[in-house]
């Protein structure tokens, strides 16, 4: 509805047009919402029963009418949209980003380094909750960086990344529950290798596929893994999952109360927070390793080959690049980091089931990569903090229930808001939040390149 409005800009009767447009929007909501807001079907004795909620319906129509009218008057149909200032500063920040990005990255790194102690010092009452959230965000950052290798660098659209996450998690869970001597640190590399192996297995059949054919086969692969995990009772426990997965130890020290525990060994007072801090640093180090490896690989021939493959497969072949090996290494290395993150997930939760590895998870990881700006490492960090952090914060917002009454449960609307945020951010910034790219090879001096210059996810 925005572009029909632009043609009207500067018109004398723009107010009338605004009202007409808002009325149309309200009418549309009335139609769309009739069967969902005004009516509700519920199971009742003797079949289904309809209940009506006219109040909700009219409220929704009124909100849309008012919102649309205000947007029309102040943004869409005026010569001086109030968002102009906003978009002006936004693009200025974007232009300054190569320098800013470096400093932002360093600042974020420094903050992440001291994060647990920051929360312990300043938010002692909610320290556990915040550190847990930081662990979750860090896991998604790591997954995002792993997927960034496949989608952002090699340009292979992978909709089934969660499969490798699952392989990593189940590898660790099965190894540690079947063999007592295998702890987290032994299982971690094994899980990574197994996930990489599955990456190659997936990579082979899809070598010839392009674009959306590739996307659907990877999606199908993710679903196959999940269905097998769900139905292979004897091996994976089916829908019951695997529980009793051991916690990680620090050189054999367990984070438990009493003799021989971490707190006892170092003469500290026992606290459950120690284990959270330890988990945080594990995922932090894993994520940093992912980042460093990716940045280094970009400078190696294989990384250059990935980016060349993303830009033009035919040119790659004619220059003698082995596209088979290039694609397979991208899948394998991306999958390996997914596997690492998976085994971390298993040890953090202590329990895994196929429910944690649905397509939604793949979609969230892909969304983080694309919303951050494909191929941009710092973008993944920002997108993870915004999307995952924002969504988890909704759980804890108490004031909303004061506004909407005690029956209001914000967690119910979590995914609804998540989806809306995905759509809005993408429409606002189609190239992702960070829209400049660091060139990986330069002649004499670095020049800024816009994301528009880079072929992204064309899926060759």
């Amino acid at each position, binding site marked *: 509805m*925005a*572009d029909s409005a632009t043609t009207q800009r500067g018109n004398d009767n723009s107010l009338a047009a605004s009202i007409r447009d808002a009325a149309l929007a309200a009418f*549309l909501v009335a139609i*769309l919402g*009739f*069967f*969902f*807001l005004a*009516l*509700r*079907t519920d*199971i009742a004795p003797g*079949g*289904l*029963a*309809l209940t009506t909620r006219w109040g909700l319906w009219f409220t929704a129509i009124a909100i849309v009418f008012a919102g649309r009218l205000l947007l029309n008057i102040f943004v869409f149909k005026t010569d001086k949209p109030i968002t102009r200032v906003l978009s002006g500063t936004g693009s200025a920040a974007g232009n300054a980003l190569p320098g800013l990005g470096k400093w932002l990255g360093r600042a974020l790194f420094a903050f992440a380094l001291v994060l647990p102690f920051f929360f312990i010092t300043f938010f002692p009452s909610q320290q556990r909750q915040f550190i847990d959230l930081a662990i979750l965000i860090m896991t998604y950052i790591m997954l995002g960086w792993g997927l960034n290798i496949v*989608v952002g660098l090699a340009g292979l*659209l992978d909709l089934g990344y969660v499969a490798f996450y699952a392989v990593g998690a189940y590898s660790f869970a099965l190894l540690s529950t079947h063999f007592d001597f295998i702890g987290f640190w032994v299982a971690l590399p094994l899980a990574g290798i197994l996930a990489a192996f599955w990456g190659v297995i997936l990579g082979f*059949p*899809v070598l*010839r*596929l*392009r*674009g*959306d*054919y590739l*996307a*659907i086969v990877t*999606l*199908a*692969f993710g*679903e*196959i893994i999940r*269905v*097998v995990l*769900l139905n292979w009772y004897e091996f994976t426990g089916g829908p019951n999952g695997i529980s009793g997965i051991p916690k990680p130890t620090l050189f054999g020290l367990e984070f438990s109360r009493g003799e021989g525990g971490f707190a006892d060994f170092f003469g500290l007072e026992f606290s459950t927070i120690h284990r959270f801090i330890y988990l945080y640093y594990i995922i932090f180090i894993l994520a940093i390793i992912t980042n460093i490896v990716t940045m280094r690989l970009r400078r190696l021939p294989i990384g250059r080959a990935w980016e060349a493959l993303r830009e033009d497969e*035919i*040119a790659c072949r004619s220059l003698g690049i082995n596209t088979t090996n290039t694609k397979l290494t991208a899948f394998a290395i991306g999958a390996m980091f997914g596997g690492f993150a998976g085994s971390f997930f298993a040890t953090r939760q202590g329990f895994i089931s196929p429910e944690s590895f649905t397509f*939604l998870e793949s*979609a969230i990881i892909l*969304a983080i990569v*694309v*919303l951050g700006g*494909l191929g941009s490492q710092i973008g993944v960090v920002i997108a993870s903090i915004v999307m995952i952090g924002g969504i988890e914060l909704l759980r804890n917002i108490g004031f909303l229930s004061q506004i909407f009454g005690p029956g209001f449960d914000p967690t*119910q*609307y979590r*995914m*609804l808001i998540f*989806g*809306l*945020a*995905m*759509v809005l951010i*993408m*429409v606002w910034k*189609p*190239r992702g939040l960070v829209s400049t790219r660091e060139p990986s090879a330069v002649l004499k001096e670095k020049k800024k390149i816009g994301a528009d210059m880079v072929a*992204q*996810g*064309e899926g060759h």
Partner: protein
Amino acid sequence: MEYFVQQLINGLTLGSIYGLIAIGYTMVYGIIGMINFAHGDIFMISSFIALSVFLILTTVLGFTFLPVVLLIVLIVGMLFTSAWGWTVERLAYRPLRGSFRLAPLITAIGMSIVLQNFVQVTQGARVKPLPPQIQGGVTLMQGNTENGAIVVQMSYMQMIIIVTTLVLMAAFTLLISRTSLGRAQRACEQDRKMAALLGVNVDRTISLTFVMGAALASVAGLMFLLLYGVIDFYIGFLAGVKAFTAAVLGGIGSLPGAMLGGLLIGMIEVFWSGYFSVEYKDVAAFSILAIVLIFLPSGLLGKPEVEKV
């Protein structure tokens, strides 16, 4: 033999539903080259609309003559679902026209999440059962096996589904090949810029494509509701993935391919459940997709992409 024929009929029925949804995917892909991930959820939305309209007609207004009720449900459902299809395109895809290819894919996934959770929040997470409305059928064959007598039956519901699908397919093929709208669509598919230069309203054509896809999905939604009698907010995901698989299997962008792919996926699922195991029917469908694509990288009826350098 009797068992085989029975499974064949069941497969045709399921395949018809998949085929109807798959057309929506394939048309959108053909015209703007994107995967409309929200299409499966449009199908889910349509089944909820169908349920509500049905309940209004039977319990509130007291209609009893079933054919008229179903006809009204079909028409009202198509209209309202089309509005949903149009709105999704307008909000999530049109602003990104001409942007890079992954952007509309992400908004499509976002829209799919929004629609699912919107229905969950407004209609509740529990399943909605509808007792079977059309009962009875025709006995086609009878035979004896070592496990006792077996009767091959084709229920009236299955007949309705297959016949409706055939009629819609015929009407649809005519629409694409004979009308000016169909011509405009094919023109946009071949070259959007040139079509615009020659006076085709591209935005309108694309919107109408979404409307048509949604209308066909709403037919599938009503059939699903009547055939299985149980719907919830999550049915769109699996049906959508299967239908998309069907579209890709048949060669994405090709209308007969979508129908063929839908029938094949339906058959594979039903035969696999009938002869091997129900649990792994999805694995079978997806594996066959992967195998077909290895040998025919652009699907069964798709045109191979030729890239000019």
